[in-house]
């Protein structure tokens, strides 16, 4: 049995009805007609598709196709495994930023002593405790994307401020690694496993029972993917949005209102893949009330921010991003709120390059700014 027929067997792509809903839903296919999930699946069934440096690297793995597929074919998973196979043959797509971020991830698989917590205000975190705040890659984004004023570490400080205000002093560790999301979706399962193994050791050593995430990718990986590879984690991954939403309900935190119209972009990992749609809207309504407006493509139909896994950033990505920013501006909102550091980076890059008149604001910066000193 060939590697491809084995993959077809395991991902059950032979259930494909050839309906084309996947290609019709695909944000890449809209701007790059040569890319067709339906044709990739069909070619795989005839053993015509091969692991190469071809179209398999254009997929954003945003899952818009798979959530709509009537045959429940997990196309992103099929692509991931095709990439894993392609990587063994020496193909790796086109890493963005000259592969700098992939290099950082590779270095993090090694026995290093990072110095990544200099941003933490003194006394606001602990070395052991019940709650671990998994910061994610912000310390690196802060340096790499300073030019486009995106990915700043100030956002992590604001998340920490929100956690502190709930009466919790979380663990923040210098030994935290990349969650492995990009390695996995870049078709490098081995690198993902190395990073994940270290993260599990670090978190378990802290004694934490809950791990709080503000990054959608980290949360999705720990909640859905880590257990698949490593079984029972021994702690509970919690997204900061669910965490804050529960505390609005019990009255332990409150936010001051603000004027202006805003719209919210659902990140694919947070929305479609982790199912968190309501909590960000509840928090935004706590600040903006009815001035929160929706874009035509929102909730489960939200469009991807145009690039994923730091690779294949192309004119297609830019077109997806320009269309998205124009869609946001057309709602009449002056601000597009994002809840993902990468969405923010991609949109700010496009805003800077195309001079589109809409502010892009991080949800946690916004919330920390409107947090009331004392809940009344």
């Amino acid at each position, binding site marked *: 049995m060939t590697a491809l027929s084995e993959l077809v067997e395991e991902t059950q792509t032979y259930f494909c009805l050839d309906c084309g809903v996947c290609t019709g839903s695909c944000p890449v296919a809209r701007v790059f007609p040569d890319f067709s999930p339906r044709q990739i699946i069909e070619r795989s069934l005839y053993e015509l598709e091969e692991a190469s440096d071809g179209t398999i690297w254009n997929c954003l793995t945003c899952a818009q196709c798979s959530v709509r597929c009537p045959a429940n074919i997990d196309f992103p998973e099929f692509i991931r495994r095709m990439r894993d196979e392609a990587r063994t043959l020496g193909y790796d797509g086109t890493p963005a930023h000259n592969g*700098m971020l992939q*290099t*950082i991830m*590779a*270095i*993090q*698989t*090694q*026995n*290093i*002593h*990072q*110095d*990544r917590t200099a941003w933490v205000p003194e006394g606001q975190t602990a070395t052991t405790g019940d709650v671990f705040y998994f910061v994610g890659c912000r*310390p*690196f984004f802060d*340096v*790499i994307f*300073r030019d486009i004023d995106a990915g700043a570490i100030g956002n992590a400080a604001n998340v920490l401020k929100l956690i502190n205000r709930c009466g919790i002093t979380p663990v923040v560790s210098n030994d935290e690694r990349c969650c492995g999301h990009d390695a996995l979706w870049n078709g490098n399962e081995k690198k993902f496993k190395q990073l994940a193994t270290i993260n599990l050791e670090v978190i378990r050593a802290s004694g934490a029972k809950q791990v709080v995430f503000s990054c959608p990718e980290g949360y999705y990986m720990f909640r859905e993917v880590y257990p698949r590879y490593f079984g029972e984690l021994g702690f509970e991954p919690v997204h900061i949005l669910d965490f804050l939403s529960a505390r609005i309900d019990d009255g332990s935190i409150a936010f001051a209102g603000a004027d202006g119209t805003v719209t919210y972009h659902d990140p694919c990992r947070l929305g479609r893949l982790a199912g968190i749609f309501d909590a960000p809207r509840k928090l935004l309504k706590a600040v903006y009330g009815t001035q929160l407006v929706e874009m035509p493509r929102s909730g489960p139909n939200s469009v991807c921010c145009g690039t994923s896994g730091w690779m294949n950033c192309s004119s297609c990505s830019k077109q997806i991003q320009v269309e998205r920013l124009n869609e946001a501006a057309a709602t009449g909102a002056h601000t597009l709120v994002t809840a993902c550091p990468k969405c923010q980076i991609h949109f700010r890059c496009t805003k800077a390059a195309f001079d589109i008149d809409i502010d892009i604001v991080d949800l946690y910066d916004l919330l920390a700014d409107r947090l009331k000193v004392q809940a009344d």
Partner: protein
Amino acid sequence: MGDCHYLDGNEKAEKMFSMALELVKLLGIEPERMHLEWVSSAEGGRFAQIATDFTKQIRRLGPSRLKKAA
């Protein structure tokens, strides 16, 4: 600065260098493993001296623990 055959090439290089230096520190790699110096093509002797000194410095630091990565 700006006195570069490639116009603002050295300004870009300095920006890139300082970014790389910050990343290296975050990753816990010794910043002494990086060095930036401006040397004109007419300064052969000076270039050799700087390269020799930097090589000595790297030898003193010994092999990096990151040999296997990337």
